[in-house]
């Protein structure tokens, strides 16, 4: 069940870009926390630049985190962009390849890439999958990872989260003929 958002979500000035730079830094950091918590509690991997959850396949227009009807406030798009750009800089979101240039979508990292990498490594170890080639689909969508927090993670994001293991020489990624990562072998 999604957790209710913290009290600051009902604070009207949160929706106005604060002119004081110290407050603004705090304000952006509050927004990042809200987005991470929102995504995590909705089990959402991906959000649109407008602030709604993007689910694989469905192009449904959903409520946006940046619109608070209860207090009749919404964050202006310019400020939303500033929030996304800070999130990407701090490694808490990654722009996806999908979405139009004018309206990008983002993967939300409520854990850091490194932390996902460690968790995936644990799965390889406890599932006895070391030394085997496992498809990325199997890893993230297969039955064997059900119950693990990364289960359901979009494949491109999964590939990103494998990178730290490659750097540590624990993993080798297998690409298809177009250079798209399709499988991985962890040692």
């Amino acid at each position, binding site marked *: 069940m999604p957790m209710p958002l913290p009290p600051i979500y009902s604070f009207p000035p949160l929706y106005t870009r604060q*002119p*004081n*730079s*110290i407050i603004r*830094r705090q304000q952006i950091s509050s927004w990042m926390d809200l987005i991470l918590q929102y995504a995590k509690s909705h089990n959402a991997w991906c959000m649109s630049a407008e602030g709604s959850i993007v689910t694989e396949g469905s192009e449904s227009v959903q409520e946006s985190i940046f619109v608070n009807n209860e207090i009749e406030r919404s964050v202006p798009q310019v400020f939303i962009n500033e929030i996304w750009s800070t999130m990407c800089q701090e490694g808490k979101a990654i722009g996806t390849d999908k979405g139009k240039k004018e309206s990008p979508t983002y993967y939300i990292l409520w854990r850091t890439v490194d932390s996902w990498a460690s968790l995936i490594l644990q799965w390889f170890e406890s599932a006895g999958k070391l030394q085997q080639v496992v498809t990325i689909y199997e890893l993230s969508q297969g039955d064997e990872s059900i119950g693990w927090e990364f289960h359901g993670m979009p494949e491109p994001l999964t590939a990103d989260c494998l990178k730290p293991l490659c750097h540590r020489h624990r993993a080798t990624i297998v690409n298809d003929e177009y250079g798209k990562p399709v499988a991985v072998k962890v040692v």
Partner: protein
Amino acid sequence: KEGGHKPSLILDREKFYNKSLFLDEIAREIYEFAISEFKAEKERLGYVMVTLVDLYAMYNKCMRIGTGLISPQEMREACERFEELGLKDLKLTKINGRVLCLASKNSFDFVKTKILDIVNESAGCDPLLLTQLLNRDSSNAWTFAIITEVLQNCIDHGDIVIDEQISGIHYYRNSYWPVAV
């Protein structure tokens, strides 16, 4: 664990015959804690300066959880004993006549000079940038308290003047209005 503080002995109030012996023991522990806690800062910046309030929170949280916290009053009395216990590298000093700090020798002038240098180089910097420039690697809550007090001192003494915009307060060296001493 490497680098972690662990109380070497449990300083239990009840075990001491009198308050004075307890305070002596606590004083040594606080002193050691502060020296080792700020070792890196001392090497990098050349001084140690922390408000007693911040040190109180740090010391209790790091050293006394599980062994009984000390009171603010005890903290102060313990620090007042440093000199007589031969603990000479850090002593209590008051900034702006209001904020008590534990500091190494000449640290106040040291920080003040550094802050004035930074304001000289980056005219119009705000406290955020100042904290970053002064403490390149880490910007801890405790440095901020010192920086705001030193800035206040610079303003009170006319070394620094402010440019107050809705975006925040920006600091400049006072280059136009000499203060007649």
